[in-house]
């Protein structure tokens, strides 16, 4: 059977160049970078080279990069660290309704510890408004965290404008660039951000490694993990050396072919979006029509439950995901789609197709071959029958079946 991987926002395969470079650091170069002897020094040098590569890929200086275990830890580390250090200056934190749970749950936890939280709304495309941010800022605001590009609907936020506003008021600005990295330009000075999150496994690097950019002079401190003096006291724990080497190489490759690759992906994406909207009735694109990631297409199919769609696709060899995220066992549909004003029943029919560098036109053709009959079959079986739209509106509880856990 043909196998098509359409879930690059969830994770990406590791590029062979990356895997190859990592192997040496699992075998001969196995030393602990903290060790003073040759085995340690040799590995320390490689870690510092990886740091330079990561820094260069986002226009930062090497000592502004702290390695850690991934995007989630980076988000936690950034937000918690800034909050704890600056709480004598103010207790107000601003974020947006469409953030990843790594940000939202961290901010909400701080809300229970005496911080005041503002969660900015988004428009129907999932976009945060600069005016809304301006109105939300108070003289107690210490941190603003707004993602660069959204994982569920691909919408790119106007980070430059948002961050400029923060800078004007002397407020620390963090952005989660996990999804934008390698797909659109990410430069910390162009964006004007103070902290920025990167994750290896979304850019054809390994899982379990990430980095946090911390602009020199930012009032931040490590508040999660304490112990040895690794990462210049900014992150305790023996370094994930092979992972760090892989992340360095992945960042280097991510920017090397950015333009060509994103042009290619944009072409595929636009073909996919057009084919779906033209050929499958009662279907909507979610997220912004143009200000979206070049590899990202997301839809809501009316009268269908997303999960059955995904399972049917999986049986045809296509790996995609629903736009809905959940924390273990939750039956709620995606917080992102709901915050965009998409009704519950429609949000349940969401699907996310995220393309990668290995996908081809034929993959899109194959998808367009198998998808329409799946939709037709599921709609025929659906209790959310299109001829009885009234039922669909009112039986919302019935469609609250389990939703998937994509990240």
């Amino acid at each position, binding site marked *: 059977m043909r196998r098509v991987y359409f879930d690059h926002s969830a994770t990406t395969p590791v590029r062979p160049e990356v895997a190859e470079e990592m192997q040496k650091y699992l075998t001969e170069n196995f030393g602990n970078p903290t*060790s003073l002897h*040759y085995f*340690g020094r040799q590995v320390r040098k490689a870690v510092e080279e990886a740091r330079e590569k990561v820094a260069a890929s986002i226009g930062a200086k090497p000592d502004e990069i702290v390695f850690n275990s991934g995007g989630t830890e980076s988000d936690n580390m950034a937000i918690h660290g800034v909050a704890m250090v600056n709480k004598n200056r103010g207790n107000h934190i601003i974020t947006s309704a469409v953030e990843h749970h790594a940000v939202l749950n961290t901010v909400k936890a701080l809300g229970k510890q005496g911080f005041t939280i503002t969660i900015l709304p988004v428009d129907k495309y999932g976009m945060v408004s600069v005016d809304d941010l301006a109105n939300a800022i108070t003289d107690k605001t210490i941190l603003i965290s707004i993602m660069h590009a959204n994982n569920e609907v691909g919408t790119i936020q106007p980070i430059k404008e948002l961050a400029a506003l923060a800078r004007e008021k002397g407020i620390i600005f963090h952005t989660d660039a996990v999804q934008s990295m390698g797909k659109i330009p990410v430069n910390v000075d162009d964006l004007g951000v103070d902290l920025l999150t990167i994750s290896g496994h979304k850019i054809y690097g390994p899982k379990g490694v990430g980095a946090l950019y911390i602009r020199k002079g930012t009032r931040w401190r490590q508040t999660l993990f304490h112990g*040895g003096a690794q990462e210049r006291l900014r992150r305790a724990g023996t370094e994930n050396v092979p992972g760090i080497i892989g992340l360095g190489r992945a960042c280097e490759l991510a920017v090397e072919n950015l333009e060509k690759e994103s042009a290619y992906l944009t072409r595929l994406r636009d073909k996919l979006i057009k084919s779906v909207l033209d050929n499958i009735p009662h279907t909507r694109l979610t997220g912004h029509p143009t200000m979206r990631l070049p590899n990202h297409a997301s839809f809501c199919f009316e009268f269908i439950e997303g999960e059955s769609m995904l399972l049917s696709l999986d049986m045809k060899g296509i790996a995609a995901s629903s736009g809905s995220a959940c924390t273990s066992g939750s039956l709620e549909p995606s917080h992102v789609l709901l915050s965009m004003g998409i009704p519950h029943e429609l949000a349940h029919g969401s699907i996310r197709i995220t393309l990668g560098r290995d996908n081809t036109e034929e993959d899109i053709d194959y998808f367009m071959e198998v998808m329409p009959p799946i939709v037709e079959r599921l709609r025929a079986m659906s209790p959310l029958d299109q001829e009885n739209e009234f039922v669909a509106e009112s039986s919302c509880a019935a469609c609250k079946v389990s939703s998937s856990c994509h990240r």
Partner: protein
Amino acid sequence: MAIREVYLDNSATTRPLPEVVRAVVDALENNYGNPSSLHRKGVEAGRVVTRAREAVAASLGVAPAEIVFTGAGSEAVNLAIKGARPGKRGRHVITTAVEHHAVLNACAQLKEQGIEVTVLPVDAAGVVDPERLAAELRDDTYLVSIMYVNNEVGAVQPLVEIAAVIGAARKAGRRLLWHVDAVQAYGKLPLRPRELGVDLLSISAHKVHGPKGVGALYVAPHTPLQPLVAGGGQEWGLRSGTENVPGIAGFGVAAEMIAREGHLAADRLRPLKKRLVEGILAAVPGAVLNGPACDKENPRCAPHIANISFPGLRGEILVHSLEGRGIYVSTGSACSSGKKPGSHVLQAMGLKEDVVEGAIRFSLSITNTEEEIDYAVKNTAAVVEELRALYG
């Protein structure tokens, strides 16, 4: 063949086993799915994690659902200490003077939050007195963190006696959590947290021929623990973040090895350590062993770590000179926090300054051979003689 390289710094980190490397690479190349995804690629990656979890659990004699994977041993320690909920009355924590910095610095954090921390002293061999623990327990003590094997001198703490103290306190109605940093004991000594009544236990893959960047915390059922990292809710909500699938896969293979052969490790390591220590003490006048005396009958002596001082010389210089002869050792913990000079462990043992300054740590793995030990003994003696001629 003449020996040119002898790696005796296995407490800093170990060389991953070939089977471990294969598992890591296989996960990188083939099992690249996200375990949270519902489709086949995700399910396959999820299976890799499940298998590894079962292997780690089996190596500790616990249930898979009691294992939480973390990004390092240090993170496991931090999660245990800072994640343990004090409950209504909890205001006091007890630890020891010879813990790893992950424990000591996590406790320092608790202090900043208003928790009182009692640091138990150790004897001249680096061993804690269980009766001292019993004496320090208070009504508001909610957490005790005592390591199993010390990473610098190989002192094995009397966990059975400590378990008895803690057990008695619990019987008397105290609500006490017990964390054991078993990073250096794992794979070398039998480790059965359930039998001891341990609630939280930290281990790290790279100390047992697994990959770096992955650790685990054993969490006994019903332990009140809150996460330090929030997000997608992976690892039962105790550790969010996409799983380090390749690292976890490698950890699983290392754990399988331990479940299979771990009970043999001590008996294989002990003769090597004995040969090393006796060899050096015999060949180098003035050399002293720090930590518990190393014979088979002494249960306080770890089978793989030997800390030896050459008073009058400096540890760092010895390390460098030995490296010149292809022997890799360290002055103590690889991850010392670099704040105060001199090992906090040796100082806590009350050793004299020249003994502290002249200490180096040899740490063995089952992959070391007698031939390597003999090479190390001979060259250590030669290096010390050379240096003494220079500085003495």
